[in-house]
């Protein structure tokens, strides 16, 4: 059991009204929450790290709730999600992978049992490293209108012995989505894919 030492929390919300085309009746919102935590495994190789995933669960749930609140407080309007991690230079990529289960399942729980796998990305980097977090529909990964991404980063994080953990949620498709594919209205909602 490891304690979570949280240095900093960042919430970013974008409201997108248009991108050169018709102005959206309801602006698309994309939100990200980032937590800067101490990496308990920084500086040396530790074989057994998996239990840290359990320690991260409460943080994941809190972050998912805070992000929903920042997007207006209604979990039913969330349509897309993604997650990511930036591991400071004294850590390894595998430490970022610890975020997959607690980050992903936290969002799925807060959003009422979302079916689709949560797309993710991670890297090792220094303060100011930017991460492009992929986003897909919460119930059907193939919904083409909801393939999106949000770039995040923090000027002073991660320090070498820190990890930046990130969750992203969106309230709809790309603002001018028009390239066909499976539509959100056609989701069967059985396998998380279609």
């Amino acid at each position, binding site marked *: 059991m490891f304690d979570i030492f949280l240095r900093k929390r960042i919430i*970013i919300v974008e409201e997108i009204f*248009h991108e050169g085309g018709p102005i959206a009746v309801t602006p698309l919102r994309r939100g990200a929450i980032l937590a800067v935590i101490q990496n308990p495994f920084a500086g040396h190789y530790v074989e057994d790290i998996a239990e840290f995933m359990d320690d991260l669960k409460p943080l994941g749930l809190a972050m998912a709730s805070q992000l929903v609140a920042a997007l207006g407080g209604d979990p039913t309007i969330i349509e897309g999600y993604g997650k990511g991690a930036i591991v400071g230079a004294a850590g390894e990529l595998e430490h970022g992978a610890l975020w997959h289960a607690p980050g992903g399942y936290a969002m799925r729980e807060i959003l009422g049992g979302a079916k689709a796998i949560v797309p993710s990305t991670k890297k090792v980097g220094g303060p100011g490293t*930017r991460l492009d977090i992929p986003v897909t529909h919460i119930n059907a990964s193939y919904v083409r209108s909801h393939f999106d991404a949000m770039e995040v980063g923090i000027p002073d994080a991660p320090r070498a012995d820190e990890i930046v953990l990130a969750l992203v949620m969106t309230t709809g498709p790309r603002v001018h989505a028009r390239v066909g594919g499976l539509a959100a209205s056609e989701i069967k909602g059985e396998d998380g894919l279609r």
Partner: protein
Amino acid sequence: MKAQIRKIVTVVDETLTEMGQAVEPPVRRAAVAAVIENPFAGRYVEDLAELMDVGEELGKLLAEKAVAALGIEGPKAESYGKAALVGENGEMEHAAAILHPKLGAPVRKILGKGAALIPSSKKRGGPGAVLDIPLGHKDAAYVRSHFDGMEIQISDAPRANEIVVAVAITTGGRPLPRIGGLKVNDIKGEDGLR
């Protein structure tokens, strides 16, 4: 509204610890940026009055959103700053027209007071350029603990014909101020300086 807004980005950061020391209460800072069309992009226009009016509108909108994102009453804000990032087809003077003549008054109205100059910065750049917003105490510019800065970055803005306009508002100064100078408790609040 005169401003043609493509998107609005809100960033809130919250510092809970710094160098292992708890920050009590945590310092919270909000930056809100609007990405607007530059009506004068690509040509020289002598009279910039339209952008001055845009500044007035945005001062109100951005300050309201910043205070809302912090979840505080306006008068509880401690420091502020403003900045503009002009896309490549605009001129520095466009940033000046938005920031300096009219943007400050509505910001001060929302914060209840604001005797001090609102510190500012401006530059020209492309999408993803970093904008550093200087911060200073809203009632006394010499309060040393509140000399600070907040960085924002929007991956897809400004496009060539756009301007990013940002206002930052905080609930406090640096996390662990200890370099002396004028303190918040010693503010006279008459001249905006001390």
